[in-house]
């Protein structure tokens, strides 16, 4: 039996005539210790899929099985790294992590909890910022706090919803390596949702494209047969990498084209020109 299984998942929002099906006929199985990436366009229902797996929402039809048991709610076994960090702005870095640790290990003493917090904050190299609030941190640092918070609960499976989407290329590369490191250390199962094909290939064992919604469904899977640890600079010359990359991008382009031809409706734009807003405000509020 697979570690995580999604069987014929349908998810729709609204009722009656307003009902829109976001996901339809999703089938997915992930083995223990595997790193799977799901690649898709923005708005294709990726976040809905993630929320189904971590138990924030329930499917309209079908079932999500985690270790053979249906997922009915959230669980500490599945750690989530949200797209928009979702740190609590009134707590410091340490307090944000501590809150998660406290819930995951209610029996541990205060000192042990503090040690776990210190360890994980150190792991994402934020020890100097442990007493700062999220507002004082850069985007990359915030995301590292979110990573530390998710991992400090020692989940068996890490679910990442476009965790690096809002970061610049350099920070992104560093964090990819950090996440891979942590994943490799104790071979947890990981599911990464991303819109970056290169990121998927660099990090995952398998890539599954999500066809754009409504009625989003999973496309054929692509296996990445590149040895770990992977080197980013060498990867560019790797024939296997190029082949897989081209295949995935071609597939995504094709379904993009398909969608375009499906909707022949022409949108007529109104004839508008922007007002001189800048000057208007400048004089009004000076």
């Amino acid at each position, binding site marked *: 039996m697979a570690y995580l299984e999604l069987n014929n998942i349908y998810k729709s929002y609204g009722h009656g005539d307003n009902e829109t099906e976001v996901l339809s006929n999703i089938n997915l199985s992930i083995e223990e210790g595997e790193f799977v990436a799901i690649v898709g366009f923005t708005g294709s229902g990726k976040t809905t899929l993630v929320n189904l797996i971590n138990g924030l929402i329930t499917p309209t039809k079908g079932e999500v099985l985690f270790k053979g048991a249906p997922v009915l709610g959230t669980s500490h076994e599945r*750690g989530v790294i949200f797209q928009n960090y979702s740190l*609590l*702005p009134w707590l410091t870095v340490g307090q944000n992590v501590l*809150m998660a640790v406290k*819930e995951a290990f209610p029996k541990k003493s205060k000192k042990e909890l503090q040690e776990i917090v210190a360890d994980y904050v150190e792991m994402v190299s934020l020890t100097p910022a442990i007493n700062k609030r999220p507002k004082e941190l850069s985007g990359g640092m915030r995301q590292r706090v979110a990573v530390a918070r998710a991992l400090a*609960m020692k989940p068996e499976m890490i679910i990442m919803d476009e965790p690096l989407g809002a970061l610049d290329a350099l920070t992104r590369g560093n964090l990819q390596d950090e996440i891979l490191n942590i994943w490799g250390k104790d071979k947890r199962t990981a599911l990464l949702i991303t819109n970056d094909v290169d990121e998927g290939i660099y990090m995952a064992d398998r890539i599954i494209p999500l066809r754009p919604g409504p009625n989003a469904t999973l496309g054929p899977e692509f296996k990445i047969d590149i040895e770990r640890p992977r080197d980013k600079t060498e990867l560019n010359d790797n024939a296997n990498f190029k082949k897989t990359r081209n295949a995935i991008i071609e597939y995504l382009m094709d379904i993009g084209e398909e969608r375009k031809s499906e909707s022949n409706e022409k949108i007529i734009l109104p004839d508008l020109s922007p007002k001189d807003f800048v000057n208007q405000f400048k004089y009004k509020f000076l």
Partner: protein
Amino acid sequence: MRQSVTLSKVTKFMGLGMFGTLKDLFTGKLGKEDFKSFLRKTIVPIASILLFIGLWHMGAKALYEKEANFKIQKALTDQGQSAADAMKACIASGDISCKPNTLPSPAQVWDSYKSLLKDHNIIAADKAAFKEKTAALNEKRIEDGLEAITYTGRPSFVDQIFRSLKTVFAGFLLALIIAVPLGIFIGLSPTLKSSFNWFIQIFKPVSPVVWYLLVFMIVKTLLIDSNEDSSFTISFISVGLCSMWATLVNTAMGVSSVDKDYINVAKVLKLGSFQKIFKVVLPSSLPLIFTGLKITLSVAWMVLIAIELLAQSPGLGLFVWEEFQNGANDSNAKIIVAMFVIGIIGFLLDRLMLTIQNWVSFDKTEAI
């Protein structure tokens, strides 16, 4: 150096940026490029205050002359030339019997302010003397199980200010105790929200006068056996009930509109409902709760005057009413003094709340 930085920070934090700039001027720290901002922040407000006083002075003078001319004219038509001349002389001499009773000038108001302070000093001295005189006697009375003799003289203007502040804080506290927990419950439960919504919508716009009458009906009956003066109880309950709505609505809105991301975090961390409310929902709605409390305090201060007047509860409201009824030489000027005191205290209360709000909430709102 370090100290001056902290001071400017403090004044800015309290929304009193003007004083920070003013201080920079005297310490010579003001650069040329800051001059424009200095003009805007310090000189312009001072100039507008002076302009206001000037306009007020001219307006008061015009009104005075209009009434004086009317009086002279009336004497002329009713009683003839000699009466008109007598009236003219009487007005010029500043006699109380014929002085035009109109808007007082800034100078008169300032004089009244000084005389009110003087009056306060006299009463305070009187009180101290009374206390000293009765100290030994009171000790004996308490030993004998009798009530101590208290000073029953007329309260001074300053006493009335403090009495008003006491009433407003008691009312504010009542509003806080009722509205914040109720708002949290309403915000958390859609069922409670729909069951309370009609209640809030109907009672929110009710005027302070009506609230006072309602509270009066109830408290009067409840305290029917007691000989104590119930005017304070009635007025602070009315103030609380009048002003609590802003807090109630804001708290309910803050609690029900917590960012969905935070709720998701709470769910993923599997926080219990108690933990969820105290660690996620309340902190994230604190800015809105404080906005509500700020409005509540300013509404409380505003309605207090009307309610004190109705309840005959000593305080600034009653002071204004008594001066109006009194019709003495400087009554009008005293009313204007009270008006400024009310306005300035209201402003300070607002700043106080803003400072507390900035201090407790993560969302630092810039003061206007």
